[in-house]
């Protein structure tokens, strides 16, 4: 992550704040031990969806630069799934845009998690709380 942030900041003295978010694979979910997971995605649409989410964030806040990296394929517990970095002049824009990007990514970018548990592999169900989190940004508009 340090290398990604350094690359984003290089030569940009207008940047006064950098907010980052890292999503990590937990070793337990819904009461079951998780040995690993596989992330499936929709190649092509995934990139377009992330670009659209980032451009919406740039339209709403004073953002100087953003970086989104999302992994696919098989991951182990403690592996990093997603990195969001937002650079802006002030912390308010950086925090808000970073949270907005994550909330929208969780509900709009075409990724699906399949967990490996003691009882076999299972597709992770979408959470209503994620829809509510994304919906907050609509109300504030």
């Amino acid at each position, binding site marked *: 992550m340090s290398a990604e942030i350094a690359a984003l900041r290089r030569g940009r003295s207008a940047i006064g704040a950098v907010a980052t978010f890292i999503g990590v694979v937990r070793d337990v979910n819904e009461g079951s031990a998780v040995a690993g997971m596989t992330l499936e995605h929709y190649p092509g649409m995934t990139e377009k969806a992330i670009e659209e989410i980032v451009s919406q964030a740039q339209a709403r806040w004073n953002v100087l630069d953003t970086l989104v990296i999302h992994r696919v394929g098989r991951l182990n517990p403690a592996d990093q799934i997603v990195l969001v970095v937002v650079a802006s002049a002030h912390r308010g824009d950086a925090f808000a845009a970073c949270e907005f990007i994550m909330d929208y990514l969780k509900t709009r970018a075409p990724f699906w*998690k399949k967990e490996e548990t003691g009882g076999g592999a299972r597709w992770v*169900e979408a959470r209503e709380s994620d829809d509510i989190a994304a919906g907050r940004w609509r109300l504030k508009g």
Partner: protein
Amino acid sequence: MAASVDNIRVITVLYFARLRETLGTGSERILLPAAVRDVEGVRALLVARGGEWEQALAPNRPVRAAVNQAVAHGDTPVADGDEVAFFPPVTGG
């Protein structure tokens, strides 16, 4: 008058995650009947296959759709050459 080749409409349909596994395929090409004009029409065509198709794509199931890699709804038009995708609610991040 003979049917014109212009009337033949073929789309690619993609399935992801649980739907892909349940239906046993990730991709297929479908010749669209003249009456099918939108995403809802394509879904109904697939439901009419019965069995797993009818269950997995039933109107009360939480199935999301995209046309040409953009979020779509039931009334989103579908045209010749389009890429239509059906998938469960997303769970990334």
